[in-house]
């Protein structure tokens, strides 16, 4: 009996020792990463890698705004087959989303979330003396990406910027935290644009002059975006300033006669990688819609197409004739299949030309205008435009924006919203589908897309009115 007790006791002591020893090591044992592929972002390399996710950061420019423009039309049969949201946006339907949450809204916010994750994350790391450049590039890039996304969202989901009403007009949620538990709230248009321009100005000194690759933001990209933003705000002095800054950093234009870059007759006429495109400032592509993407079902507006001169190389570089109809094919986005949604020098030249024209600097404006057009025409066929009339030049330059950037991002949509405020340029858009006429008058409520139903239902924000 006695021996039993000793054995019993020793067994319990042994087991207890094993368990106790285990307890101490327990935390260590359990603090182990579950999957090796899972990185818990912790250093600057990780955060830079998040921003280098070009499939997310450079591929989420909204598309529905472009769908609503007048640069093209579609056959009634195509319309019948188009569905939501391409078809509904084509006719500016009151409820274009029909219960779905469109990528146009959600995807730019993914860019915002990435940028916020990075901004929250690097703050915890802090600037090290040896890594200041890297740190600054990451911070500047994150600010740029977030501003780019906010700008894209504002163009589709806010009223166009009007200084007198901007502080009352509802803006977009300006999310600045990565925590999904913080609910979204609507800002004002003024706050939205202040955020964008403020962040971009903060980013400029942080960013490098020339980026490693054009999917990364740079000083020129931030300046270029500011030029675009101020143009859309009708603040032409600022737009001119930042267009100038951009073109000081990069002024390249492609000569469309140069076969190194341009394969005019090919389905993909531009270089198949953005870095090979000399005009590229910041590469991004739009979301996809077969109505407007290259070689899609959209037929280019005949007035627009016929406005190109016979010697204008854009006629063959940007378009292909299919069954007698001009179909858009030329996008800087030679890499993928969607539309170019970033910024290139051609747009900045046109912004500078427009701003100078508006300021009355006609000859300076003409320099930019003629330089661009010379690069677009068959060598030796272009005669420089000569004028002293700023008003007539403004109309020409504005029309040139349509011709140069017909399916780039939502440039045309932004122009319609901005220019409709000026009675000289205000137009009513119409769609004719088998005799059913849809119209979009200037400054119509339907120039502002509604928020998705889910956004409204889950946050009780005010919805954009539509008619």
């Amino acid at each position: 009996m006695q021996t039993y007790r000793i054995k019993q006791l020793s067994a319990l002591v042994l087991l207890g020792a094993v368990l106790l020893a285990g307890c101490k090591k327990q935390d260590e044992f359990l603090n182990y990463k579950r999957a090796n592929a899972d990185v818990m972002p912790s250093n600057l390399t990780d955060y830079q890698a998040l921003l280098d996710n070009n499939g997310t950061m450079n591929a989420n420019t909204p598309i529905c705004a472009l769908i609503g423009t007048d640069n093209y039309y579609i056959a009634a049969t195509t319309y019948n087959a188009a569905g939501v949201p391409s078809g509904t946006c084509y006719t500016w339907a009151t409820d274009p989303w029909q219960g779905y949450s469109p990528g146009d809204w959600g995807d730019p916010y993914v860019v915002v979330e990435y940028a916020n994750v990075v901004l929250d994350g690097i703050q915890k790391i802090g600037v090290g003396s040896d890594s200041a450049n890297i740190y600054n590039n990451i911070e500047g890039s994150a600010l740029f990406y977030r501003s780019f996304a906010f700008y894209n969202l504002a163009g589709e989901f806010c009223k166009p910027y009007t200084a007198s009403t901007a502080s009352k007009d509802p803006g977009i949620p300006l999310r600045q935290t990565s925590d999904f538990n913080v609910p979204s709230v609507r800002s004002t248009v003024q706050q939205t644009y202040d955020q964008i321009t403020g962040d971009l100005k903060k980013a400029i000194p942080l960013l490098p002059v020339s980026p490693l690759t054009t999917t990364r933001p740079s000083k020129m990209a931030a300046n270029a975006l500011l030029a675009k933003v101020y143009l859309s705000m009708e603040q032409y002095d600022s737009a001119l300033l930042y267009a100038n800054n951009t073109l000081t950093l990069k002024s390249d234009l492609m000569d469309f006669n140069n076969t190194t870059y341009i394969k005019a007759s090919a389905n993909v006429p531009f270089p198949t990688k953005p870095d090979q495109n000399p005009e590229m400032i910041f590469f991004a592509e739009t979301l996809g819609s077969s109505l407007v993407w290259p070689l899609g079902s959209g037929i280019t507006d005949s007035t627009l197409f016929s406005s190109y001169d016979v010697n204008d190389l854009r006629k063959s570089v940007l378009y292909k004739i299919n069954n007698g109809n001009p179909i858009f094919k030329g996008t800087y986005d030679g890499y993928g299949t969607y539309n170019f949604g970033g910024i290139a020098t051609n747009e900045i030249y046109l912004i500078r030309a427009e701003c100078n024209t508006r300021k009355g600097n006609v000859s300076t404006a003409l320099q930019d205008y003629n330089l661009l057009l010379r690069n677009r025409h068959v060598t030796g066929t272009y005669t420089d435009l000569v004028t002293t009339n700023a008003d007539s030049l403004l109309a020409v330059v504005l029309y040139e924006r349509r011709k140069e950037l017909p399916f780039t991002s939502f440039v045309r949509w932004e122009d319609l919203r901005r220019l409709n405020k000026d009675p000289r340029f205000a137009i009513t858009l119409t769609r004719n589908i088998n005799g059913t006429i849809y119209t979009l008058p200037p400054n119509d409520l339907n120039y502002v897309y509604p928020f998705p139903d889910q956004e409204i239902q889950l946050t009780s924000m005010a919805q954009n009115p539509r008619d």
Partner: protein
Amino acid sequence: MTFRTKLLCVMKLTAVLMVVAALHVSAKTVAQRVSLRVQHQPLEIALAKLKQQTGLLFIYNDREMARAKPVTLDVKEVQISSVLDMLFEDQPLNYELQENTVFIVIRPPAPPPADVLAMMAIPVFIKGEIVDSAGNPLIGASIQLNHARKYITTDDKGQFSLTAQTGDELTVSYVGYETLNMRVFANMTWLKLSMRPLDKGLKEVIVNTGYQTLTADRTTGSFVQVNNELYDRREGVDVLSKLDGIVSGMYFTTNGSNYLNTNLYTSPGNAGLLNPNNRYNITIRGQSTLSNLVSKDPLIIVDNFPYEGDINNLDPNMIESVTVLKDAAAASIWGARAGNGVIVLTTKKGKERQAMQVDFNENVSITGKRDIYKDRGFLDANDYINIEDTLFTKGYYDSYLTSLQYPAVSPVVAILAKVRAGQLSATDGTTQINALRNLDVRKDYLKYFYRQTTNQQYSISMRGGSNNATYALNVGYNNFKSELVRNQMNRLVIDASNEYTPIKNLEIYGGIIYSHLNTQSDNGFGWGSSSMYLNAGGNYALLPYTQLADAQGHSLPIARKFNQYYMDSTRKKGFLDWNYYPLQDLALNDNTNKQTDIVLNASVKYKFTSFLNLVLAYQNEYQTGFSRTYNDPQSFYMRDLVNSFTQVSSTGVLSYPVPLGGYLNLNTGTMSSNNYRALVNYNQNLGGKHVINAVAGGEVRQQGTTSWGESAYGYNDQYGTAVTNMNYNVSYVKNPTGSGTIGSPNGGYGITTNRFISYYSNLAYTYNDRYSFSLSGRKDGANIFGVKTNDKVKPLWSTGIGWKISSEKFYAVDWLPDLRFRATYGYNGNVYNGTAYLTARYSTSGLTGLQYASISNPPNPDLRWENVRNINIGIDFGTKSHVLTGSIEGYQKEGLDLLEPYPVEPSVGIGSYISGGNGIYVTKNAASTRSYGTDITLNSKNIDRKFKWYSTFIFSTVRVRIIDYAVPQTSSSIQSSGIGLKGRPLSGMYSYRWAGLDPTNGDPQGYLGGKVSKNYSGIINNYNPDSVVFSGSSIPTIYGSFRNTFGYNGFILSFNIKYKLGYVMRRPTPSINLSDEVYLRENAGYTQRWQKPGDEKFTSVPSFVYPSNTLREQFYQFSSATVEKGGMIRLQDINLSYDLKASWLNKSIVRGLRVFANVDNVGLIWKANKAGLDPDYGYIPPRRSYVFGIKSSF
């Protein structure tokens, strides 16, 4: 090899085995009853008669037998041991029954008087085993020495050891059995005692929790024990499906018999890719979790440790018994992983002092072809062509025909286009189209893609043991030929175990399960797969007039990706043929998957005393999977890939960025788990009235996987060479449009590691064989959760009581001699497979060549473990002579802190990495559910004479309601997964209230603001009870089975009827958009569509429209008009077997031989719906299988 020659081989193999077996004559224990009538006849004659009836072997010396006295006896149906006792009562001889052998020896002289004995007493070390009449060990039987107050109890194998002195008296007692007394004699070193039941107690049932084996009578929880006989009643390819229809409370969401067919081997790439959180489609007592990130699978235990590998690696013939743990008290010992119940599988083991027993099973099952003609998800050629014609007229195809992407169009559309373009006369066009109207692709499907399924199973089990060692070797081989031509699986499983007692009180156990699974899945053309679809320009369709082969059997191309014009024009430039030939691809496909799994199990048990022992156990499982996919140069995949990248120079010379040749893709994955366990067992019977079974221990587990892959372009299968100097960073202009880089080969190496630490203890105490009490606790930690350690470790506990009312003195219900009540309360957990941290994954950008990271999980520090609270109340009972036995249980299960997909506004920007259905979701512990259910099992012996009729009735109900659910309902909630409102069933089905068809144009109508409305947008967006009706639970609330077994003279006929009641389902409906009917969802409901006023009286299928109206379609699809009742009663199987009588076999070495035939999936007896739907299978009925087999033992 044909089936017949295979069978011959097997028969030869059987013969060889018989010879082998002859060297080890023995057989399993039999608890037989015999009848004997002898009138003053020699003992030898009487024994010969017994031998004839029982197959027992009598070993004796003729000389000694000659001294026997003649015997007279007349008994009927008496236990063999009793008969032997009577025969030897006055003989100078005695007998010793060991297993199936009776040794006859000279009776030793009568023992001397006690006082003399005491003087000459010598110590004897006795080891022994206490079994019931069927040979099952009796756990916890008490052995008392010299009427002392000290008892020892038998262990979990029914064994004991003690030291006594010659002349001591042993008393062996066990509840419900006759007490035995005997004196210790000198050579009493091994004592095997068989106890006779008093025919009062319930049948002895041993349950195995994976940590302990317990007598059911002393447990408080809800266990279901499936013994070998029941488990083997029906044949099956995998180990789990055989449980379908025999365990109360266990529900197979897909019909169990079809487990392999539905989940594996039907299409390539499917194998091994089952949802890791829902691998088995089994729920035990309803679903207790909501999130897709939480495992819904019960925990599977094989030989005391969790089994992590592919369950298909196990062979059903190696399983001895199954215990299902249902409530908290039963399962809480498994802690955090037990919330979905636990299934404990025990493989066949050897027994000590058992001569080798060999069991050999073989069976063949044959299953007919799938009846795809019954599928209503199909439109016949005539209707299909009419729709295409209509769409053509409306210009639907215009953009396709002019598109610069050159999408393929169907042959009909191509003909119509030619006619319109004037390239073909209208008459010729009509003739050509009419010729297509009579074709039916289903004929070709059945001819070229389908066949009969055959499954062959062979297994051998050899078991035995000596004084201090046991061994078992189980070998199983399975050869499964899927219904799809060229798809097959074969599996070899070897399971060996040894137990050895090298020194007193020390037991060493070692076991290994090796399995090798070979899967070939070349045929991806199963009915319903998209491999045969036109797949171009956003149109997907199975064209019903597709032909696979011409009259000579040559493979024909079908419309697939590009139109004929484009394919011809590229061919002229020298491109590869761009046509798609399904039959050619079928012959060229090469997808193999090999899986090897090894489970090593080792344990050491040291007994400090008879009641206290320590077990140290280790288990290692290592599984490797290897898959090979080879795309032949002639396959469509390869030609398409090469062509799309082919570059044409200005002089027309072709170059091939994707090299000509094949493409090889290899993937390897390993899974390993290591378990270390230390366990103390305490089993003691104190003073006869107190019985304690306790266990306490801890364990550490690490489970990890690795995976990597390789692929090679330009692969030449003959020489094994590949093109390796490719540049994946170049962006090429592709044909016909766009540009892109060539997909770079796999190079990743993935590792996952899951770690767990657990501490647990379980106490079962029984007083006076009447009152039982249990208490169990477990603490689990894992490297899953939370930022704080507190959240990583989760304590769970349970407690329970049992009361054997029928043992009370006041109990006097004669007709119900057995009545026991039990109740439990406690918690289990569920395991979440996500993480609380912000995590990202690295990849390399094809555009920039830079390493980039994607967020895979947003930070979520508030995550906690899910809890499941269980309350279980049960009654076990047995009527007199056990005519009716059974148990009735009621339970309540509460899922607390359940993770739910919690919708957030899209602007939080996490849409791309967590999305579920229509909206963006994050995971939060926000929901709770409450389930109520009952499980009833009734066994009755309706007739128990020479002709026997036994019945088992299993009846389960379960209702799971949502108590807390934070998800705000949005406009489209009704259309998503079936999660609904507080107070309503989980998996409830909601519908838009139906108001019939508009008699003027066949539009579907609903209600809005109490009025009949066609404002579909309004109805869908106005989430209110006025527009919406609750249709019922979408999972059965009542289910079970009714099994009947008839026996006569060795014949056993049994059939099992299963039923599921009290639920609804949605009938597959046509899309009421004309273009979707042909390009999204073909459905024969089209033929019942509203066409003219008056039709609304006969049909609920609205008129079809073009252009599409999405909201109109959504309204109809989710309206109450498409809801069907789900109830059904199915005759699942019929089983006929015949046991060759031992007497017929007495000359042979075969101890038992059973032949059987089984029909599975016999058919529906009744179904609630009138739509022709089998609720489990849809329109295509399950295929009936026929199984034939032999089970023999030597």
